[in-house]
């Protein structure tokens, strides 16, 4: 590679390799908050939260992807993001996200004493909300 100050970014889901490109920086939603990786970052491994992966300075311009459930591995020259669900903003089905949101709220209301159900409800709600937010941000 001629330009060595680029990060190699890969976004992989079980269905496809969504992104395999070079970028200046990448923002990743980890479970404990967003983190941004630049070239030369220290090796890091984190669990993915729900939110948006944002690529900056990629060949194709800045890109955003809504992701949920997965892991991110940061190495000095490459970032690999594993996500069970990853969507481009224009691929998000808002109607479906809405119904997922309602589903999550239903689980929450019916959870009663069960802590596990609350955790599940929270996950569903967070995912649906982040999808809606990404979709709304489209313009």
């Amino acid at each position, binding site marked *: 590679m001629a330009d060595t100050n680029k990060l190699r970014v*890969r976004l*992989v*889901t*079980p*269905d*496809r*390799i969504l992104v395999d490109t070079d970028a200046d920086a990448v923002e990743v939603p*980890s*479970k*404990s908050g967003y*983190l941004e990786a630049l070239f030369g970052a*220290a*090796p*890091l*491994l*984190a*669990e993915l939260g729900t939110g948006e992966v944002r690529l900056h300075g990629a060949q194709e311009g800045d890109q955003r992807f809504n992701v949920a*459930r*997965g*892991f991110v*591995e940061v*190495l000095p020259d490459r970032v*690999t993001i*594993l996500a*069970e*669900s990853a969507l481009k903003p224009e691929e998000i089905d808002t109607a479906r996200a809405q119904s997922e949101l309602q589903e999550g709220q239903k689980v929450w*209301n*019916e*959870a*009663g*004493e*069960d802590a596990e*159900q609350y955790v599940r409800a929270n996950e569903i709600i967070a995912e649906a909300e982040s999808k809606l937010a990404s979709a709304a941000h489209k313009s």
Partner: protein
Amino acid sequence: MANVLDLRRRIRSVRNTRQITKAMKMVSAAKLRRAQERALTARPYAAMLTSVLQSLKRRADVYDPTTGDLRHPLLMTREEKNILLVVVSGDKGFAGAFNANIIKAATKFLNENGDKQIDVEALGRKGRDLFRRRFPAARYSDAQPQEDGQQEAVRRERHRSNPIEFVGESTVVLDKVRFDDVRALGEEIVARYTHEEIDAAYIVYNEFKSVIQQRIVVERVLPIIEPGRQEVTAAEEMTQEERRRTAEAAASAGVSLEAQQEADEEEKRFGTADVDYIYEQSPREIFNAILPRYITAQLYHAVIESVAAENAARMTAMDSATNNASEMIDSLTLTMNRVRQAAITKEIIEIVSGASALS
């Protein structure tokens, strides 16, 4: 001897059948190609997950400080009393011995573990129909609505009355496998294991490395003994004859046999580096999050490969059927020509002998 008209009808009918089997073969070949591609794209994810898991294992804090064992509910082995068996079969027939072989392997497993309590879950219509008929369905007590109208939050209570029962709750559609459906199944299995409803989970499916490298395996998915290693408890390889037939069918349908190499290289690119990571969350936390995902990835992998194998089996079966039809047409045509010639000869003899009687 049949007359010419009958034979001509027979030939026409066989020719029609051949056209159908040929079309089915080409359709299966196209589906196989697509399924193969899906299996390939799923690989980097699975490989990456495994390598992250292995690199985590090198970290000390994942282990129990006193015993030195890995600590996680999914790693705990218990005496196998209650077993879950997931059978991945096909949705449709016309695939040679594909479904029969899967069911045979599953039945063998059930017979060998006759002293234990086994739940059978089936993916694919063929297996589901059979096991639903053969074993009684699992019964649960209904969740009791409480006075304030809220649903009871505890897990449904199971009423087990038979050693082998059928639980058919999965919504996975083999024709259009979606990761989310498989995830639901995986999460259910993990939940049942952590609630100690089951002590082990096995999956029976047709492994598909390539068109000529397939086998039916019984694989243990839970408990995880060693991440990254396949826990195959029984396997049945293809016979030489089957392999030859499949290779022939693939060649005539234009499906390549060597689609895998490219993917293996792809897989290597995703290997984790041998470095000491900073962990954003504690390694334990990451470890706990990754294990259920690992199970799901394994299930997804099994389902995808089974779909590819089913289409390969159908392609082979339909190729055989097409060849048989061609042979039949040849032999029928021969008979028809003979019958026609016999009739002509007979008529000539009659005319000749009639003429000679007159003169």
